[in-house]
C-alpha cells in the first residue's frame, strides 16, 4: 500500500477510539487547549527562582495564572487525576513532581488505587497486565 492509495483517517472515529481506554486520558488537542495554562504554569517551575517563589506561597503564585479555581484547587491538593481531566499532561505536571522532590514513579503511583510500595511491588512483578485494561466498550 503506497501513501497515495491509503484511505485518509476518519478523524472523528480516531478521536472517539482514544476515549475508549480505561483509566487513561490521551493528551488530545481538546485537552491541550483546555489545560494550556495548567501546563504552562507547570513549565514555569523549570527555573530555581520560580520554584522558590511557588514554594513560599503556592496560592499567590497560582493566582498569577489564568487558570480555573477548580484547577488551582487540584494543583494545591496534587490531585493529578483531576488535573488530567482538566487537560494537564504528565510531562508538564512532572515539573511539580520534582518541585515536591518526588520521584516520577512515586508521583505516578498517586494516580492509581495503590500505595507507592504496592505500586513498586506490582512493577517488580511485571507491571499491570493489559488484560481487561484495553477497551472500555469491549471490556477486553
Amino acid at each position, binding site marked *: 500500500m503506497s501513501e497515495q492509495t491509503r484511505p485518509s483517517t476518519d478523524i472523528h472515529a480516531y478521536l472517539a477510539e*482514544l476515549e475508549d481506554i480505561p483509566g487513561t486520558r490521551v493528551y488530545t488537542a481538546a485537552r491541550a487547549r483546555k489545560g494550556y495554562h495548567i501546563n504552562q504554569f507547570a513549565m514555569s517551575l523549570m527555573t530555581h527562582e520560580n520554584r522558590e517563589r511557588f514554594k513560599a506561597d503556592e496560592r499567590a503564585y497560582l493566582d498569577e495564572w489564568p487558570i480555573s479555581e477548580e484547577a488551582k484547587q487540584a494543583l494545591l491538593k496534587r490531585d493529578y487525576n483531576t488535573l488530567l481531566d482538566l487537560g494537564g499532561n504528565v*510531562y508538564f505536571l512532572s515539573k511539580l513532581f520534582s518541585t515536591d522532590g518526588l520521584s516520577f514513579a512515586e508521583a*505516578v503511583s498517586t*494516580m492509581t488505587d495503590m500505595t507507592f510500595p504496592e*505500586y513498586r511491588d506490582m512493577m*517488580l512483578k511485571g507491571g499491570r497486565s493489559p488484560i481487561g485494561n484495553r477497551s472500555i466498550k469491549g471490556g477486553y
Partner: protein
Amino acid sequence: MARLTAGVGSSHVPLLGVAVDQGKTGDDYFGPIFAGYEWTREWEKAEKPDVVVLVYNDHASAFDMKIVPTFAIGCGERYKPADEGWGPRKVPDVEGHADLAWHIAQSLILDDFDMTIINEMDVDHGLTVPLSMMFGQPDKWPCKVVPLAVNVVTYPVPSGNRCWALGEAIARAVASFPEDLNVQIWGTGGMSHQLQGPRAGLLNREWDNRFLDMLESEDDAVRWIPHIEYLRETGSEGIEMVMWLIMRGALGKKVKTLHRHYHIPCSNTAIGHIVLEPAD
C-alpha cells in the same frame, strides 16, 4: 560519501541516567538492565561512528506548549543538557554536526518532509540517556549528534507509516552527503509504559517482543500499526515506539540483528534495546 552503517533502538528512561550519574549501574536493580548494553558499548568502541542521527522526544524541556513541531531537526553547533527540575545532568555538552544536519534538513524538505529547523536548544534525558547507555561516562561524547525531535506527546502524533517514510528519506539524504562519514541512526523511547491515570504501570512483555520481532523482519507490516494499538497494548507512553520506526525505515528492506535485550521493569517502564545493520 556518508554511509548509514547501523541502527540502534533503545529506551531512554530518565532513571537510567540517574543510575549512571550516581554509580548504581551494577546494583541488583540496575545490573540486569545495564548488562544488556555491555555488548553494545564494546561494539560502539569498535564501530566509532562519526555521527549519530538521534531520534528522540523532548519531555517539556526545550519545547513547551507554545510551539509543537511534529518533526524537528537540530542544525546547531552544540547543545547543553537541560535542567529538568533537578538541575542539568552532569554529562558533556552534545556536539552537533551542522553540515550534515543542514544537508539532511534541506534534502528532507525537498523530499516533501516539512521539517522544523532548530538552531538552539537544550537536550533532555530523551537524548542524553541513550548516549550514556551506549558510551558510558566519557569526558567528551565520542561522536557528533544530529538531534531529531518527534512530537509523541500532543495528539495526533505522526503515524508509524510517516515515521518509517521519514527514515527512508533520512537514509537517502545521508547517502548523498559528500563527506566520508560513518553515520548511525538511533530510535529511542518506549517500550511499554503508562505514566498517567489509574491504568499507570501497564507493561506488555509479549507485545513488546512481537514489536522487536517485526523490526527484524523483511516485511514492513510494523509501519501500519495504528496509534490505538500502541495505546491499548503498551500504555499511553508506549506510543514513543513510533520513533523506532524512523530508525528501522532508514535501514532498508533486510536487516541483520546484531544484538537484542529486553528487561522489566525500570521504574514505570519496560526496557528494550536492539542493534540492527542493513543487509540489502
